[in-house]
């Protein structure tokens, strides 16, 4: 019996190649860059009112924004995809961000929750699609938070965010554009890069709230002496 073997040339579409390249575990490479931040009067009001030592959501194991979660040194991020979703697992705060590949509409519930099931609207509601080999994620329905927690750069309910993810070899490049006419005079554009990690896993973070009250009480006797 003759067995005819035929070689079948499979031409993978660019999107499938891109999807394969994006999957994996990544870690931030450096602080990245940001465009000039020009705040409106309302944005400046929120920035001035911000107290770094009290208002940073990170103190309470809460994501301040998507940008803050991406840009955390040393924390691993895992990207996985199937036909219907992209799942981004952030080691920081044990966050899981499930984003559907639906371009037509954005759900009204948050895309991100932690492993305990707590939802975080600070990270908005998102949808994703591919443009060529770039993954695009659009997000709305944010609640008040901070794009930059070191400086109190705010986000709010009118904030729209667009993330563009593109892989170049073992480097993941992300361009993150925030627009919000109530807070910014011009779009805020952040860019960062990530290195691919091999043979590692995402670890359970088990965040502990930063409670300084007990520590402040230890030195209260010093205030009594002044």
């Amino acid at each position, binding site marked *: 019996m003759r067995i005819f073997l035929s070689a079948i040339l499979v031409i993978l579409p660019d999107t499938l190649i891109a999807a394969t390249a994006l999957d994996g575990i990544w870690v*931030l490479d*450096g*602080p*990245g*860059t*940001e*465009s*000039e931040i020009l705040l409106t009067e309302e944005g400046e009001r929120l920035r001035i009112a911000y107290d*770094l*030592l009290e208002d*940073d959501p*990170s103190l309470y*194991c809460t994501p301040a924004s998507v940008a803050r979660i991406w*840009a*955390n*040194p*040393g*924390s691993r991020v895992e990207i996985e995809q199937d036909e219907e979703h992209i799942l981004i697992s952030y*080691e*920081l705060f044990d966050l899981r961000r499930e984003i559907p590949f639906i371009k037509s509409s954005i759900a009204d519930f948050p895309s991100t929750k932690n492993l305990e099931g707590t939802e975080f609207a600070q990270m908005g509601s998102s949808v994703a699609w591919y443009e060529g080999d770039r993954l695009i994620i659009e997000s709305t329905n944010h609640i008040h938070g901070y794009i*930059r*927690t*070191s*400086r109190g750069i705010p986000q709010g309910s009118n904030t729209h965010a667009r993330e563009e993810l593109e892989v170049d070899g073992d480097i993941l490049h992300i361009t993150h554009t925030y627009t919000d006419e109530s807070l910014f005079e011009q779009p805020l*554009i*952040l*860019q960062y890069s990530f290195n691919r990690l091999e043979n590692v896993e995402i*670890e359970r*973070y*088990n*965040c*502990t709230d*930063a409670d*300084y009250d007990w*520590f402040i009480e*230890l*030195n209260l*006797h*010093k205030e009594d*002496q002044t």
Partner: protein
Amino acid sequence: MKKRLLFVFTIICLPILANAHHSTAANFTQEIISVKGIIERVRSVNPHSSILIKNTDDEGEITFWLIETTSRTTLNRQGVSLDVMEVGSEITATGRKGRREYTMYLQKISFEDGSEFFPRQDRD
């Protein structure tokens, strides 16, 4: 005219290097200080591990200092353990002075026997 407009547009779009956008870096000043004290408590947690020390000055006045460092996860990946910090032992902690009073971001621990402990810093 077109060339001049193009030049202006380019200037506006030049990216600015993100400077200390990480809030950990912003919680601590650039001032380097050293504090000697007795270890009272050690916590290895995420996002920030810490060592509580009790400093007694020459006049007998006691001040508690909270020496903060990187996350438990990062320390584990560095192969570093805070188990070397024994409660009751005397150390000298050196690091960046915190904006919160009597806090410090750890750069180095010096033990009485002359040995030293260096956690790797979180990248800003």
